[in-house]
């Protein structure tokens, strides 16, 4: 007999597909979390696949990093009530091992198959940990102790996941590949239709030809950010990356954002189903599938040529997107697209995508000869590791300091004369153009351009542009600054950097003073 335990909709789909593909005739029991029990009132129809369905409480909230003995009592009682014992099963498949059942089997040294939580997460355990961090630190300690995030528990006899979705260089002797979409498509079409029908009543979803599908995440619901930040994040994401696309939005099943209101011209798929059903359910093949950092895209990569994702780093630092855009504009303005750019401390996926957009959407500037050969983007870096004297002296290289606020100290590392002579501030002005659903601020942002190349500096001093972000409700623009304005902004930049540094030093000093006081 086989036991599957599942927490999320994707787990449930994996369990059904795995059962149909590999253990069609073997009797099996499904442990279904109370989350899914609430979500699928029709869960009894799962008896088509499993002999027995048992609902269990998945909560794992230990008070300390020690295993809560009550968890054992709970499962023993659950098994007893349902007339089976854990020893009755020849195979145990645990999906979402960082919940109560995973802890139970690991603590009791019961051999089990560890399934990755979502495509690609076997090699990215930090994503799961960061989500758990919002709820319980002690849970993280416990799960780390038992190896429940990456399957390093000694009780694990095999780790099951999607190999193509793992980080480069990932290898594991006990790894067993499982591609949900591939397995789903290889099943008899009636069987796969039946599986789909459990999750959604919709058989086909019409999407326009050449559309872009955006897979969203429930970031506010996970308390990763506030509701307003999530709205702003998606407004920025659409305005910068898909301004003129025919957009289809597929919200995460737990995402409560009002996308229909925020993006009136987009089609919003309100039906809740795992995105692994796309090949079976969509009327047309999308031109592109995009996400900020949803793991769902990892499973779809093998079936759609064009996919695009940014990163978790972007989720943390998306407010810097205007600075990124203006930096890339500068790159386009002063360099031929074929020339070199290098980013230090910046989110490469954002820069690369923006550059890609420029290459495809705009004609190259007719510059006879580029003034410099390469442009460096600096943001969240440690000066000593990133900024060398050679870079500052090279007339063939220019630097853009995005100055997004985390590490502004590098400005202080520039020689004072160089700062005043070679640093050109670029002020990004933000102007509100809509009243409703406006979640941005209107504070100007400053980035700094550094070059010893006079022609290049003159060119940048004249740089101006304006861009409308209709969903965000902003017009962002850059205008040439007078020499006085430039000087003031450079001095303000130095002052801000000095202030940050002094604040840091003050806090270090007071901590040291406290420590000394305690020692006395």
């Amino acid at each position, binding site marked *: 007999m086989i036991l599957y335990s599942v927490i999320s909709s994707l787990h449930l789909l994996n369990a059904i597909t795995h059962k149909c593909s590999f253990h069609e005739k073997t009797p099996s029991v499904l442990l279904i979390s109370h989350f899914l029990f609430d979500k699928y009132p029709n869960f009894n129809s799962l008896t088509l696949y499993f002999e027995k369905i048992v609902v269990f409480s998945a909560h794992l909230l230990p008070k300390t990093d020690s295993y809560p003995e009550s968890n054992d009592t709970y499962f023993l009682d659950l098994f007893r009530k349902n007339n089976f014992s854990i020893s009755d099963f020849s195979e145990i498949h645990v999906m979402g091992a960082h919940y109560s059942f995973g802890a139970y089997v690991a603590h009791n040294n019961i051999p089990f198959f560890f399934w990755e939580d979502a495509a690609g997460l076997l090699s990215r355990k930090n994503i799961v940990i960061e989500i758990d961090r919002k709820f319980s630190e002690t849970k993280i300690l416990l799960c780390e102790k038992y190896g429940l995030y990456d399957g390093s528990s000694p009780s694990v006899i095999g780790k099951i996941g999607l190999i193509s979705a793992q980080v480069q260089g990932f290898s594991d002797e006990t790894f067993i590949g499982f591609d949900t979409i591939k397995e789903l498509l290889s099943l008899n079409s009636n069987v796969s239709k039946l599986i789909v029908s459990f999750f959604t009543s919709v058989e086909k979803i019409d999407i326009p030809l050449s559309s872009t599908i955006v897979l969203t995440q429930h970031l*506010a*619901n996970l308390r990763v950010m*506030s*509701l307003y930040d999530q709205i702003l994040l998606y407004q920025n994401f659409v305005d910068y990356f898909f301004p003129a696309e025919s957009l289809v939005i597929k919200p995460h099943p737990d995402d*409560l*954002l*009002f*996308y*229909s*209101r925020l993006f009136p011209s987009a089609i919003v798929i*309100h039906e809740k189903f795992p995105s692994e059903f796309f090949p079976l359910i969509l009327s047309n093949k999308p031109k592109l599938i995009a996400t900020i950092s949803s793991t769902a895209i990892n499973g779809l990569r093998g079936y759609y040529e064009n996919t695009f994702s940014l990163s978790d780093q972007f989720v943390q630092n998306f407010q810097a997107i205007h600075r990124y855009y203006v930096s890339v504009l500068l790159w386009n303005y002063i360099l031929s697209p074929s020339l070199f750019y290098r980013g230090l401390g910046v989110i490469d996926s954002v820069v690369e995508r923006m550059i890609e957009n420029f290459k495809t959407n705009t004609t190259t500037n007719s510059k006879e000869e580029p003034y410099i050969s390469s442009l460096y983007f600096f943001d969240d870096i440690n000066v000593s590791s990133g900024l060398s004297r050679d870079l500052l002296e090279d007339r063939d290289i220019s630097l853009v300091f995005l100055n997004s606020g985390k590490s502004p100290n590098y400005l202080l590392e520039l020689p004072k004369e160089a700062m005043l002579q070679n640093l050109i501030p670029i002020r990004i002005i933000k102007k509100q153009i809509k009243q*409703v659903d406006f979640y941005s601020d209107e504070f100007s942002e400053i980035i700094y351009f550094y070059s010893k190349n006079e022609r290049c500096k003159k060119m940048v001093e004249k740089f101006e542009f304006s861009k409308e972000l209709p969903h965000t409700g902003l017009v962002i623009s850059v205008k040439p600054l007078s020499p006085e304005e430039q000087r003031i902004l450079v001095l303000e930049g130095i002052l801000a950097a000095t*202030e940050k540094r*002094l*604040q840091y030093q*003050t806090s270090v000093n007071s901590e040291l003073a406290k420590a000394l006081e305690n020692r006395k």
Partner: protein
Amino acid sequence: MRVFSQFIRKRLAYGIVMKSIKNKLYDFLVTSRPLVRDRYQNYVCSNKEYHKNHRFRSWVYLYHLLKFDKAQKKLSKFSLVPSNVSNSQSRSSAVTPSPRKSDCKSLPVNQRLRLPYLDGSESFAFKREEPIFFAKRLMPFDIISFDIFDTLILRTFSNPTDLFMVVGNKLNLTNFKKIRIDAEKEARSISLALTGSSEITLEDIYKQIQYRTGLNIKQGVEAELSTEADFCFPNQYFVDVLKILKEFNKTIIFTSDMYLSKAQITKLLYSCGIVDYDNLYISCEYGCSKRSGNLFKQLKFDYPNKSIVHIGDNPISDYSSAKELGINTFFYKNCHEIGNPFRADGMSDLIGSFYSGIVNTHLHNGINVFNPYYEYGFIYGGLYILGFCNWIHKKSKLENIDKILFLSRDGDIYKKVYNILFNDSPNEYVLWSRIANTKYTMEHNKDDFLTRMVTHKALSPIPSTFKDILVSIQLDFLLPLLEKTSKLKGSSLLTQENKILFEKFLSNHWDSIVENMQTDCETARLYLSSIIGASKKIAVIDVGWLGSGPLGIKYLVEEKWKMNCNVKCLLAASHFYIPESNINEIMNEDIETYIFSRMYNRNLYDTHKKSNKGTNNIFFEFFSQSCSPSFNGFSNGSFLFDMPEINNYEITRDIHSGILDFCKIYRSFANKSPYLFNISGYDAYMPFRFAIRDIRLVKSLFEHCSFSRNVGVNLSGQKQETVSDILNPLKI
């Protein structure tokens, strides 16, 4: 006779026993339950006559309150009642628990001293569930019903009937609030007698007002509706919830016990931007109310076999009545009920209510949680700065002022707020300070120079060397002379013992000191001339206290430089440790003060001076600190600055952010009835007076902050005085 006296004694004993039982019962049923106590006593106080004549009805109300209280305790896990986390907070806070919980508990409610929230952030202490998570809990229901007033839309008055004062102003009717309240009661009584229902319309109310005052009904109704529209605004908390619910195609209805018609409420909702809903249930349209339960019955009848949930702020109408009919409910505790116990008392009626309304709805709507410094600016500083700026504007118009000069550093926030409010008077931020003033007016104010540079510095807990002092005022050329002629070493500390010697030394070289300052004084002239330009009359603004900065500029501009320009000195308040020091300037109206001086609002002057051992200036000045170092004057044509109080900057930004938000919100509503800008200095000070009523609030916020009482800095030690350096010796 004996029998009679026994009878009397027995009656008295019986009376005492009965009174004791009654008191015990009252304590058990009312006093011991905070929610019941606050609401019941509020009800009794607001309806004294009615309560006297209808005891039974009051008991029925009490019965409902007790039921509600019991239910509240059960549902606290899920309701939208803000969870007061003050207990847990106080454990980690340096501040001892609020006396609301301990010190005053034994006193009757009306005798308790009202205090500010003392355990950190007020908005955090009463935070609600975030809108997204609340919306999530509404998802299982088919029909979602919202109460309208004080739930879906909010008013900027701490008591809804205070709006009638503004209506009365529009209608130019004296005592209108009372007239309006009485008219509503009367209209309800008549309706009850005639129809058996006390549901009425706004027109019914104005019929009664017409009877009392002769006011045209239509005119009255329009005035009230337009005033409601002016001061009602959407509760962003529920606006967000509605957006989410609409995305998921939920049926949204609004339900209200109200005398406004459906058309009138629709218009009001429209003016608040709330248009996306499915149905509206108004008691006066249906002739039945939520309170009686009949409006909910109608709702159930209209939506059979649907799961319904109702959200509202009234414990009876929105909670108990719906619950009794099996309707699911969520209680949204009224923002004003949460905030009012922590709002300043003693303010004038309209400004007090309007101020409290803005603070309560901003802090407690459930959208944001603010840090304590933001709240310090918003709650206690916003009204003062806004009122001061409005007073400056009025003065400048009245006195034909050409330009307003806001002196650093207090002028930073004044100027920001001034320019939010007005765009019709030129103004400039001017770098100036006590030390700059002392330097450039020294030939006129030798005593001030010696007092600040010698007497005060000798008293300072952070000692200065003679070298520090001389360098800080560009008198380093005197160092060799000091050592030679007075036997004082540059590296020695200025003390009480040697201060006479130092003072004598400075006096002996007074002419060369004055001479030495003339070059920089000329730079100061050029600087101020460029700012003043062709202005013939300027106003110089500062926080206080003696007014030496503005008076110094007045002397320089009018007397020393003879710039053909008159200078008016406007201070927020005036108070100095030598009370009569600037009495002449005040009496001559060279200095005018907004809040208090020796001659004006004397009770505030005395409170400010005497309470908290005279330290209130410090906490008052935290409203107008600036994120820049103090200006030290000029040297060789350049600006000189003191050591920056970097560790205060984040705090200052937060305080300013709170002040600016308050002023923007206040302006957005007061623009519709501009007389609300006429904030008296007395009212403007009340929130601060409330904040310093218990020193623990300001002490916990600022004791670690830098605060320099003296001009100049400890250059060699680079050490700054902190608030606790000042408070500790005073045993505060």
